[in-house]
């Protein structure tokens, strides 16, 4: 029977790229489907009704969601070039560190990128605390970053995103001076052929990250202070806010949007989301080059 492997992903998402990486490391043929995260396909919504997110792996019609779950599934289904060790204790350590990266380190790093001033300082400190932990683990025990690249290295691939984001936002979290061992791992991952293939081009990623956050920031800031003085009534910026609200925290704006979105009369009069988004996208797209 022919194997059918599909991956629903997004080019800018480290979680999605992680799975591409895993499939390539296993030498597997797969069909890649790029998802527009502001206009999710019916297929994605069907295959991941709970979270409605990428990545989703569909193997012979059966969907698997959540990147670490997908990684384990891939490793168990295609047993050559294993990512995870066979020893239960070594496996436990690998799972522990992958979770640490995903649940502790990355959320703090993202927060540092998205926030400003005091909040940013605190987030940077937190992210660096976690890097310190990774640093000593790498130095002493070499759980990951060994000869053959495995489960934790795949999870740690998002370090490459971090370094790009640092440049895009002018934030310093991971530096070679402070965290030599982690930096060395980052270098290995950035230079490794297969990992390189699964990285969006740097300039493209910087532009994407900047647009998503920087371009909208002054407008949202204006909205935020405007709403506090209750100047804004209209709903033309509705989709705009929704788009960015996922990325940064503007609490008053978000609450305002929620009130509108839930109001029965407004709902009747609001354009369908799919109609307003193209307009917003037009606004956010860089001018066409000559």
């Amino acid at each position, binding site marked *: 029977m022919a194997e059918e492997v599909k991956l629903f992903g997004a080019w800018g998402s480290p979680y999605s790229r992680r799975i591409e990486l895993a499939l390539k490391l296993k030498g597997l043929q797969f069909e890649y489907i790029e998802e527009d995260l502001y206009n999710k396909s019916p297929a994605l919504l069907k295959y991941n009704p709970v979270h409605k997110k990428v990545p989703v792996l569909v193997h012979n019609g059966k969907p698997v969601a959540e990147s670490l779950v997908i990684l384990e599934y891939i490793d168990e289904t295609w047993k050559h070039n294993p990512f995870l060790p066979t020893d239960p*204790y070594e*496996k*436990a350590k690998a799972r522990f560190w992958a979770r*640490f990266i995903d649940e502790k380190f990355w959320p703090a790093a993202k927060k540092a990128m998205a926030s400003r001033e005091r909040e940013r300082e605190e987030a940077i400190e937190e992210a660096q605390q976690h890097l310190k932990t990774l640093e000593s683990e790498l130095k002493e025990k070499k759980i990951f970053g060994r000869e053959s690249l495995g489960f934790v290295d795949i999870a740690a691939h998002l370090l490459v995103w971090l370094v790009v984001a640092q440049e895009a936002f002018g934030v310093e979290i991971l530096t070679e001076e402070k965290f030599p061992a982690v930096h060395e791992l980052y270098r290995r991952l950035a230079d490794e052929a297969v990992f390189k293939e699964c990285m969006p081009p740097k300039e493209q990623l910087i532009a994407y990250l900047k647009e998503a956050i920087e371009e909208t920031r002054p407008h949202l800031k204006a909205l935020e202070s405007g709403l506090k003085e209750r100047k804004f009534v209209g709903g033309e910026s509705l989709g705009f806010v929704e788009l960015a609200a996922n990325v940064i925290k503007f609490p008053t704006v978000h609450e305002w949007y929620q009130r509108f979105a839930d109001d029965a009369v407004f709902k009747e009069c609001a354009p369908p989301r799919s109609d307003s988004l193209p307009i917003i996208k037009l606004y956010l797209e860089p001018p066409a080059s000559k």
Partner: protein
Amino acid sequence: MAGVKLLGFWASSFAYRVIWTLKLKGINYEYIEEDLRNKSHLLLHHNPVHKKVPVLIHGDKAVAESLVILEYIEETWPENPLLPTDAYERAMARFWINFGESKVECHFFQFFKSAAGEEQEKAIKETVEILKIIEEQSLGDKKFSEEAIGLVDIALGWLAYWFEGQEEAVGTKLLNSTTFPRLHAWIQNFKQVPAIKENLPDRQKLRAHSKRFRRV
């Protein structure tokens, strides 16, 4: 055979996941109660990263993070398996285990801590959404049976006992046989399994503890 120790806390549903798993597998272990306000050297030494319970110490190996511990136990003592053998079924199980976990952290905790008013309304709404997903998609048509108890049930076990205390502390009952019939039935069945029934913290003590915790 190397000895097994479990560092836990009497009120922690995370620690109980490990207790239930050890009991279901018939593994002998020594339980060590931690005072979380005065953490032992043993805990800090064996879980320097998070400094939390539960921690499983097997011989000279220490494993932290309850879900990581559960998988470690499953793989080290494969008798009485608690995960399916089929890779896809395992992926489904892991998905639901992770779902329960991630929701506990943000939404249920928000529910528990929420102040009356808008904050609570929102938290209740989100909690109900999650219960609905579990009711309709996770439990689905699955008929619970004692033989079929697995890591998904164990990972969601806090819903069967700790959630009640949270509801009481907040002052609102969300889960009953009318609102969530499958979930309710699952809870009743789950609590009847001897390994579970015989290993639950004292109800009154737990309620008091929840109330105290909420006030902080």
